[in-house]
Structure formats: structure tokens, C-alpha cells
């Protein structure tokens, strides 16, 4: 039997790591996207844990929808990175303002 607190601490540690990753890799937009993926992973952990705690499958349904939305979001984000690289030859976050449509 694994206490619920262990899982909650694991997901909060994952969330803090990804938040620190957003601060650390301010220049590299690829790692920023990966940090956001880890953040979504920790949120999904919380949904499954509390769904199990309340004996309700709605938490898992919600994780399913989050996975769908995150897949679409990362596809669009990567497309934006490709457009940025094609125009500016860099993926620096500071250059994103120069895209202009």
C-alpha cells in the first residue's frame, strides 16, 4: 500500500522542477516547451491520484482530454518554432517579437 502523500509529493516535485526549468532555459524555446510538457504530466498525475482517492473515473477522463489538448498545443508550438527559425535563423525567445504575422 502506497500512501497518497507520496504520489502528491512526487507530482509537486515534478511541477517545481518544470517551473525552475522555465526560469533556467529562458533563451531556448525548445526546452521551454519540454518544461511545459513535464508540467502537464504532473497535473495529470494529480488528476489520476485524486480520481482514485474519490473512487471516480472522471479524473482519468480528464487526463485523456488534457493529453489531446497538449498534443495539439505542442504541434502548433513546434510549427511556430519552425517558422521562427526559417525567418530569423535562430530559436531565441527574444527574436519571437520580430515575427510580425
Amino acid at each position, binding site marked *: *500500500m*502506497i*500512501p*497518497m*502523500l*507520496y*504520489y*502528491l*509529493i*512526487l507530482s*509537486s*516535485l*515534478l*511541477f*517545481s*522542477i*518544470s*517551473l*525552475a*526549468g522555465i*526560469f*533556467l*532555459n*529562458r*533563451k*531556448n524555446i*525548445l*526546452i521551454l*516547451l*519540454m*518544461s511545459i510538457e*513535464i508540467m502537464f*504530466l504532473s497535473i*495529470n*498525475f494529480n488528476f*489520476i491520484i485524486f480520481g*482514485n*482517492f474519490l*473512487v471516480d*473515473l472522471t479524473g*482519468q*477522463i480528464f*487526463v*485523456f*482530454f488534457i*493529453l*489531446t*489538448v497538449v*498534443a*495539439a*498545443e*505542442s*504541434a*502548433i508550438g*513546434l*510549427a511556430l*518554432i*519552425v*517558422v521562427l527559425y526559417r525567418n530569423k535563423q*535562430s530559436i531565441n525567445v527574444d527574436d519571437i517579437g520580430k515575427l510580425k504575422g
Partner: protein
Amino acid sequence: MEIELYVFFLFSFALIFSALRVITVNNPVKAAIYLVFCFFFSAILWLLLNAEFLSIILILVYVGAVMVLFLFVVMMLDINLAKIQEGFVNYFPVGLIVFFVMAVLLIFFLSDQFSNMDKNIIQEITLIGSNNTKNLGYLLYTEFILAFEIAGIILLLGIIAAITLTHKKNILTKYQNPSEQVKATKSDRLKVIKDEGQKQ
């Protein structure tokens, strides 16, 4: 100590380690590989929580599709690594402070709220059977059918947005421009020249 607890500790430490490597490694390809490890370990932990369908989905959709997309983009771009890493040392203390403040606050709050929950959270949730996939499918097609259709539309939106952003217009392709055709007048196409040679 049961075997479940050993498995949990092993894979949660591996998960934390690979998440730390994702944000500190300087090569984006390595970061993507460590992110794959992250998803794999969390899929195993979700199996422990009796979410079998979601753990398989995480491996098939995430490791199989989204991470391959990430790797494609990383390999397509020729990135100057030295220029990208330049702010890392400056931001390191800020990142460390953010990590500790967030982690300490969350763990303090959670251990205050959920420390004496002696309920076993690893339990089977039964709705129409003991099959996790069957239960999820039942809920998805009855109670959450509208949300399910909206999710399909969001995926279509993602496809359309990604294609329109990255698609290059091919110059060699011949195509008609209807508005140009309508705008054309007689003077655009026909030029009347006086024949000078006839006079002499």
C-alpha cells in the same frame, strides 16, 4: 515493505532524475530523450495507480508521436548551442530559489492536508466491469460525448494550424487567380497601335 513500494520508489526517483536532466542538459536532442524516459517512468507509475489505458496512451501517443515530432524539429533546426546556453549561469540562482520555494510550499501544504489519509488509493474503480478501458470507453461515449467531439475538433484545428504555418507556397505550381481574372479589362489585354508605315 511490499514490492509495490519498492517499484514506486525506484521509478519515482528515476522520474525525478530524468526530469532534472531535461532542464539542465545543454543538448536539445538529449533533453528530448530524457523527456521520453520521463514519460516512460510515469506510464509505469500510472500502471501502479490502475490507470492502464492512460499509461498505454501515454507511451503510444506521447513517446510514439509527440516526442518524434520534437526530435524531427530538433534535427531540422541547426541550432547554435553556445548562444542558446548563454543565460544559463545567470539564471541558475533564480531557478534554484523558485524550485525550493515552490517545492517547500507545496510539500508543506500537502503533508498538512493529506498526511493521515490511511485509505488505500490503489484501488480498482468499477463502473460496468473490472476492465479499465471498458469503463473509460463507457464514460467517454455516454456522459462525455460532447467533450469527446470537441477534442476531435481541437485535433483537427491543430493539424490545420500546423500545416498553414509551415507550408511553403510552391512557386513552380501553375494556378489561376480568380480575382485577377475578374479585374481584367479590355485595355489590359488589347493594345491598339497606329500603323505608321501606311502613311508614307
